């Protein structure tokens, strides 16, 4: 009995102590190793060097001399953010302890024109404080504008989009629809496509995409075509508002709406980050985000780094906004006349 117990105990102790035998060696956490890992991760996963006209190895060679094994976290953070900024991509970012989440895209990085969208102005001046809104995962804001025009704002793309058709049914005598996608931070575009399809009468291709599937520069999946199904027939005018902070799945929702003949885009170019993204952890525990897909519109062109152009280009000014005027929304209302 005692012998058996000792054998069992020794097996248990041996198995419990043998983690390292099966795991990959712990990665080195010094600044040089982390810097190199960022280079490798982007080399292996990032899909858009060509679209964004970036020679990644040349950038690595340029910044590499600034980092060595003894560099501090602060030095590493500065060099990495400068290096990633060269991609100017809204999907590229870095999260590090005690620091603001870093975006490589210039509009996000510098918060350029970020203050040119104020939901409070819309609520007070245009919806006369008669609106519905919700927080959390179901973010939306909607109400009725003068002349029975429905206004709905989605700050992201998720199950909140199910509100779109509910609201249209709620106002059966509506004269049209304004879908405000300014400051839409993205999410899962399939929610948006499912709802837009209820307005659309004819199935149409929206975009095609392919994803990195290996470490080689040309390792991609086959192209996949995403279509907007035709499951409804909303023939009234639809105005879609965009700005430089309409990004990712928000942009894909714009692309989905854009294929409908009764849709007009009003506002500024979108961000120009239409890919999908992934995140990875670095050896030192910081996190990077990067884009892994190429996306082409039905004409075979990319919006990556460019943005989706509006049919009518309008930008708010801070002075007007502070006086309670949203010029983009006013232009959209005007288009119903």
């Amino acid at each position, binding site marked *: 009995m005692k012998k058996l117990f000792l054998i069992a105990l020794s097996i248990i102790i041996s198995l419990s102590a043998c983690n390292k035998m099966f795991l990959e060696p712990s990665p080195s956490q010094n600044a040089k190793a982390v810097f190199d890992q960022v280079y490798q991760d982007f080399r292996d996963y990032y899909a858009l060097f060509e679209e964004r006209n970036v020679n990644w190895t040349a950038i690595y060679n340029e910044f590499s001399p600034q980092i060595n094994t003894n560099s501090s976290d602060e030095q590493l953070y500065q060099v990495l953010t400068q290096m990633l900024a060269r991609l100017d991509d809204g999907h590229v970012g870095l999260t590090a302890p005690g620091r603001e*989440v870093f975006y490589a895209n210039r509009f996000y990085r510098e918060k350029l024109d970020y203050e040119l969208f104020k939901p409070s102005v819309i609520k007070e001046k245009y919806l006369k404080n008669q609106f519905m809104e919700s927080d959390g995962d179901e973010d939306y804001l909607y109400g009725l504008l003068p002349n029975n025009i429905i206004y709905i704002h989605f700050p992201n793309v998720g199950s909140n989009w199910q509100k779109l058709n509910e609201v249209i049914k709620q106002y059966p005598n509506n004269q049209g629809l304004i879908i405000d996608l300014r400051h839409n931070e993205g999410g899962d575009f399939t929610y948006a496509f499912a709802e837009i399809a209820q307005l659309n009468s004819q199935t149409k291709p929206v975009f095609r995409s392919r994803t990195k599937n290996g470490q080689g520069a040309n390792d991609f999946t086959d192209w996949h075509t995403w279509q907007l199904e035709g499951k409804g027939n909303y023939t009234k005018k639809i105005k879609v508002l965009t700005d430089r902070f309409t990004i990712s799945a928000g942009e894909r929702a714009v692309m989905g709406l854009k294929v409908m003949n009764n849709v007009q885009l009003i506002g500024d170019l979108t961000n120009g980050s239409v890919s999908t993204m992934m995140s990875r952890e670095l050896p030192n*525990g910081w996190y990077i985000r990067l884009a892994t897909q190429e996306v082409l519109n039905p004409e075979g062109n990319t919006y990556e780094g460019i943005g989706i152009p509006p049919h009518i280009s309008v930008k708010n000014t801070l002075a007007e906004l502070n006086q309670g005027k949203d010029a983009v929304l006013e232009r959209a209302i005007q288009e119903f006349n």
Partner: protein
Amino acid sequence: MFHKPLLLLAWWLLSEFAIAQNFGDSDYKNSLTFAYGWHHQVSQDLLFSPRTYRGSALPNLQLQFQRDNENSRHRLQIGFNSFTTRSQEAFEYLDWRTLEKKKVLPSNFLTIDLNYSYLKKIKDGDKLRLFAGAGIENQIMANFYEFGYSSIFGYTALLGFNPMLQADYQLDSRQNLRLELATTLGGWLARSPYALNDDEYIENQQSHRTLKTLINFIGDGNFQTVNRVQKVRFALSYFREISPRFTLQGTYRWDLFKVTRPRPLTLLQYFVDLGISYRF
């Protein structure tokens, strides 16, 4: 395409279970066991991170039905674990919009196991009984990595074929020990794609229904042999009969799970369970 392996699996499980029911020729051949314990996981998934995640699963549950015939043994096991894991101490970062301080949340790994095994007695000594057989081990893992501003989902599912050995050693009239060894020779493996969110992945989950998404994910897997997927299980159990119908048991179990593609995954799980069996 993807329904076929699932239908085959369901058919096999049901038919084997039916056979098990028909074998009975005396009372108290069946037992139902409920177990709970300390479950710990060490994982390293290079799809997400080169770092090692460690953590325990306070919410966990193991249920087992076993039928012992004169020369064979059937066993059906269901297990659930929710591991809370970290690769480092949580740090704070500043939200981009509000500059509000936020803390990195722990990552969560959910595992669901559904295993069936059939063992044949190959040696029947005074104190030692040996069984050999095989089983199918089905493990579904959903990983929710919390990377500060981003949450990333990943999955791994293995429907594996396992040869298995069991040795029962009678300590006295009321106590015995059981040693179990099992290894996977291959099976149907489904796993997150190389870049996590490719078009196939997005298409698979666009119904936003958990079961349909799960079936789609599993359906997108393929058969892998032992060179690409390895799973080894070692379990040592102690049983003490406390009445003709009830038995207490303590089990130490060690699982190793390794996958090589699209990037290597290594998972080590340690279970220390206390359980009670009811015989009927």
